[in-house]
């Protein structure tokens, strides 16, 4: 079976200070079983041999869990395939002759480092503000000392599956990090272990989110649709509640 021929329009930007532009590449004989990133690997290999600079993009585990990869494909964060990170998107979802537009996450809190690579350290700083339970190693009581209702544990897990990829921010017309921040507030706030710091956590994380220059949430729901882990808007409602009622 012969592969697909595709045209790629890719954002190229040498560095943070470069203006950047869209560049066009042709890739031939793309197998439908390839992942999207493997398709870019093939292109990059060819670019290197030709002496051109390969397209820089972030990626690591390539199994949809590390959250490092992420690009806006045809205007949609991680592409149109639902619940799928870029690395797990496969070329069988494209057709021969397609033109694919590939851009970096766009948000002023995620400045472009190079090509499709952006700086997401703002997320780490939001976690630093309070996305944890303070428990130094060795100080924990027996794991069974506090039973956790299964429903709470399951709901906490659902929120905790966030991989911190930033697709929610990329998709949000307001550039808001609400879904990311809310997922952590929800995860920890649903567990008995997270109660002592629940108020301070919600306040500190929301305020850090603002300080990083993310926009506000207008409940458009774009974030939850592109979220590879399907984090629900419930998390944002919970964040709002916790924030407003925090002492």
């Amino acid at each position: 079976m012969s592969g697909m021929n595709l045209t790629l329009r890719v954002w190229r930007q040498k560095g943070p200070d470069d203006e950047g532009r869209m560049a066009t590449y042709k890739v031939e004989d793309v197998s439908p079983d390839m992942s999207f990133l493997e398709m870019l690997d093939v292109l990059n290999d060819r670019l290197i041999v030709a002496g051109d600079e390969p397209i820089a993009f972030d990626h690591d585990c390539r199994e949809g869990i590390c959250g490092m990869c992420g690009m806006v494909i045809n205007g949609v964060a991680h592409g149109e395939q639902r619940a799928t990170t870029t690395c797990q998107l496969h070329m069988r979802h494209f057709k021969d002759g397609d033109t694919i537009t590939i851009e970096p996450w766009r948000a002023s809190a995620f400045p472009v480092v190079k090509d499709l690579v952006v700086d997401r350290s703002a997320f780490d700083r939001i976690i630093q503000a309070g996305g944890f339970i303070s428990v130094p190693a060795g100080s924990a009581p027996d794991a069974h000392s506090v039973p956790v209702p299964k429903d709470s544990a399951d709901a906490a897990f659902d929120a905790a599956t966030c991989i911190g990829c930033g697709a929610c921010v990329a998709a949000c017309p307001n550039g808001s990090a609400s879904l990311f921040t809310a997922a952590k507030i929800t995860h920890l706030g649903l567990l008995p272990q997270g109660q002592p710091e629940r108020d301070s956590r919600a306040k500190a994380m929301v305020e850090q989110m603002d300080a990083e220059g993310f926009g506000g949430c207008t409940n458009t729901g774009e974030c939850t649709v592109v979220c590879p882990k399907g984090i629900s808007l419930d998390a944002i409602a919970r964040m709002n509640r916790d924030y407003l009622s925090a002492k």
Partner: protein
Amino acid sequence: MKYTVGEPIQDTKAPEGPVEDRWDKRRFSAKLVNPANKRKLRVIVIGTGLAGGSAAATLGELGYQVTSFCYQDSPRRAHSIAAQGGINAAKNYRGDGDSIYRLFYDTVKGGDFRSRESNVYRLAQVSVNIIDQAVAQGVPFAREYGGLLDTRSFGGAQVSRTFYARGQTGQQLLLGAYQALERQIAAGTVTMHTRHEMLDLVVSDGRARGVIVRDMVTGEIETHLADAVVLASGGYGNVFFLSTNAKGCNTTAIWRAHRRGAYFGNPCYTQIHPTCIPVSGEYQSKLTLMSESLRNDGRVWVPKLKGDSRPASDIPEDERDYYLERIYPSFGNLVPRDIASRAAKNVCDEGRGVGPGGLGVYLDFADAIRRLGRDAVEKKYGNLFEMYERITGENPYDQPMRIYPAVHYTMGGLWVDYDLQSTIPGLFVIGEANFSDHGANRLGASALMQGLADGYFVLPTTVGDYLAGSGSFGEVAQEDVDEAVDQVRGKIQRLLAVQGDRSADSFHRELGKIMWDYCGMERSEESLRKALELIPALREEFWRRVKVTGTNEELNQALERAGRVADFFELAELMCLDALHRTESCGGHFRAESQTEEGEALRDDENFAYVAAWEWNPDGTPVLHKEELEYEYVKMTQRSYK
């Protein structure tokens, strides 16, 4: 490739006496650092996975000045995050006969008697604390309706001691460690450098005193000095190019430390995981693991007929060979990884493999769906099934999954003593980067346990003991720093100067193929000698023809990869040499020459009950130091899972 045999090496740190008292004894004898002094002491931690992340956080909590590095854009992305199945702990919450001793026993036996009893016992002891710690941090483990923790039995264990968080246990545990780390960053005890890669170790006056790192955004070569250096940089499975490791996983940190004098323990011990999604084509960049927990309910089979090309559903029951159940009636589909992997290879070698190229076997859930119902199966494995479908485009509810073994974990790594200290004083190695605890084969759900045991509980004690003597450390000699920096710059310049016509990836792929074919699931003297011819030739070609675009002074992924591949070449040779010298079969290391009549691995305890610790020798002939292994508690027996 030649080698010489040097002086035997000994683990001088493990206390004597009953095995259950040794860790207590060691903790008590460890010297303490006074809190005021801790603030003045610097510790560098390379890597932010379960081991490195938990170590950096804990050292920060204790009051040390910690500097942490990772090559990813955030410490949360380390590849521990991809571990699916679970984490073992001897909690015996089920009352099913588990105990610290049983976990210890299973791990020593599972490691095919090539690990240290003292280390493994400590691991089993500490496992209990890990679960407590993780739960307190808010790790959302699976729970029963009563609110208590759920467990399952996992890869080769007959008790239910594996704690899990759906199929994302590694993610949840790593996020726990990451959050603890971020808390310390906010508190100012840990300074985090993301997108930084360690390229060399600074050794001064015989002690590890710092690292040379490259800022992967600017290309700047930076020197960071400290009183102790901790490597938690993970395993080197990517030497095979195709593995379940993340693309960025590499050997550079430990390899550079090895070249600076740290011995490399058992480099040939590689774990091949039996349940991965098979390769689909030449362009394949990595392999994806399907959690081994699938084997709890899935049945592994191939057609009885060679070259049977019928779709699975058309093959009647009596023409299927459920080979694991047939060969190993008492463990069936749950035999340890090494055994399951090799059995799959054997049936494929017989021409009975399924899927493209005949490199696959079926993992069938039809029975489980009939027995438990589709909903129950979906609840247990839903996310894994979805992942499989995303990658292969096939629906595992309707047709069996195809799986094939893939490189997954390296039991080998830098040699460390009971204190997790390498042969370079002040250089500690934890997690997958060291060689300890798993012997020749790691049991499922034990990697998370080891990484966190090292980081949260063992290292913070033993580093303190070392640092208590820091008063006698001298100043770091400038010439030692300059020499390391020159080395690093020199290598980068050489890579950029070649300007050949092949990408680093293409060499890496070729190297990986050599390793898989000749130093993979089954090794022989002939195959290893062949590899030892091919690798140096390819390495020579690499240095002649590699093409690295761009410059050092920018984000340059081509340069990063080329540097890593160059180190993989050197490591690959040592792996083959180690595999060649160990003429026995044990655990993940299977020598065709050493098998029982039934084709099982045959150990040679008389000649090989030792750890092979290799010393780097600049003239190219490594020196082998043997650490004899003694078993006082677990009697050495031939493993049998029949």
